[in-house]
């Protein structure tokens, strides 16, 4: 039998290999090398970190392919890149560049206000954000091979990441207690495919790997998300917007591995310099919130 590429098993399988790790936002090849040196399990190549996208305003699009190619050449770990929600041509371009994962991301300005990309049509795997179980299962139904619970990117405020991780994990818990005859109504209520609802109930977790993202800025933030029950973490602006990115990156990697060991989290948290300047999510006008993007 021939080799088969682009299958669901290899798409979901790469996410399995990233578990327990930290995926870091980088904007240059130099930053990508720092991230790799600190123990990142993958990097997200983008032109501006979310904190800058937020500050600059305007339309945020897929990054310059030249920059993505430079980052791919600079490191041996997997490289992810973002396309706009529903922008399947940006996704095609990223696949053509050879990125290892495409993030269909609410951090960029959505290109379609009704539909996400048909991710089954691609050989490259996709990660998508969610705020609740219904959103997660709709994305998986469209072909996402990995999920991240959405935080409010670029704020350094972990509160939304916690809210959405608790929402997803809490709904899974409720689903497991539910009598089987209630599953169809539940699927209808949350707007998710019935068979994925059933599969999630049987597994007791999402059918794909689930990371936390958005607003994480410290080793303790990473360990908090891991203790809540996610499989790994994305750290965006939190690293390269801080005073000492290399040390902070390394500390967040250690805290993600040793998330249940408070002594280690305490030790690695010492002397990291200034964290990124935070911005409380509750002070941000609702029209500027990113997590609400996605349908």
């Amino acid at each position, binding site marked *: 039998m*021939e080799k088969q590429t682009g299958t669901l098993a290899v798409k979901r399988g790469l996410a399995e*290999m990233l*578990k327990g790790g930290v995926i870091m936002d980088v904007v240059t090849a130099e930053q990508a090398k720092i991230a790799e040196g600190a123990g990142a*399990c993958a990097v997200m190549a983008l032109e501006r970190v979310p904190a800058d996208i937020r500050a600059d305003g305007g339309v945020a699009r897929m990054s310059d392919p030249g920059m993505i190619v430079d980052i791919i050449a600079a490191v041996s770990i997997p490289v992810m890149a973002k396309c706009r929600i529903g922008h399947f041509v940006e996704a095609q371009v990223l696949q053509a560049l*050879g990125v290892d994962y495409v993030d269909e991301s609410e951090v960029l300005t959505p290109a379609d206000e009704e539909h996400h990309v048909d991710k089954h049509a691609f050989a490259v795997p996709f990660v998508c954000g969610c705020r609740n179980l219904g959103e997660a299962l709709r994305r998986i139904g469209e072909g996402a091979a990995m999920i991240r619970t959405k935080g409010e990117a670029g704020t350094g405020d972990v509160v939304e990441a916690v809210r959405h991780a608790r929402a997803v994990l809490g709904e899974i818990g409720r689903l497991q207690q539910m009598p089987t005859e209630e599953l169809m109504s539940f699927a209808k209520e949350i707007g998710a495919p019935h068979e994925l609802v059933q599969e999630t109930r049987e597994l007791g977790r999402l059918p794909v790997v689930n990371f936390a993202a958005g607003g994480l800025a410290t080793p303790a933030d990473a360990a908090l998300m891991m203790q809540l029950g996610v499989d790994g973490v994305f750290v965006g602006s939190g690293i390269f917007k801080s005073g000492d990115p290399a040390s902070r990156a390394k500390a967040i*990697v250690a805290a993600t591995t040793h998330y249940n060991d408070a002594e280690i989290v305490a030790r690695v948290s010492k002397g990291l310099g200034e964290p990124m300047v935070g911005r409380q999510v509750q002070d941000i006008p609702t029209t500027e919130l990113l997590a609400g993007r996605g349908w």
Partner: protein
Amino acid sequence: MQIGVLALQGAFREHGVILRRIGVAHREVRLPGHLRGLDGLIIPGGESTTIGKLAREYSLLRPMRALAHEGKAVWGTCAGAILLAKQAGSRQPLLGLMDIAVQRNAFGRQLDSFETPLEVGALTALGEASGANGSGPRPFHGVFIRAPLISSVGSGVEVLARLPTGEVVAARQDGMLATVFHPELTDDDRFHRLFLDMIALQRGAVTAGSYD
């Protein structure tokens, strides 16, 4: 019997699920103290640079080598196989326990990740039913994710599986087992049972004093 699964990063949970299913106790290993009293160790798939750096940072490299030198069996899948190798062609922490060289990301990037059936003669000894025509064991489903390959093997190393194109993808040397694909991502527990047999053999060898 207790098996350790290195749990610094990667697909350690999946190994635990299979071990539980075949009735073997296991422990997640994150610090040197967790290695005490183990009969064998599995190093899972993940990012080999991440796992290697954390292993060095938390002083695990030397005690893991010591475990192997005491005659305990060690199995590395994908990133784990890279850690077992003497050479990986890049500057990263390695255990260097097996006389093999590996080439990282040898098949390309994620778009080149693939699945393919593998003929693995060593699995016949597990008493599996032969294929329908009686010609040997059913193939093992190989899941290769940004996989390395074993680019050269020393004289004491037994090759367990090759791709149809000849590349070595599984090998064994004394108590060391390296697979560049992911048995833990399938429902097939034959490699896990092969590893248990290797542990039993190693124990016998140590008891009989024939292990050097």
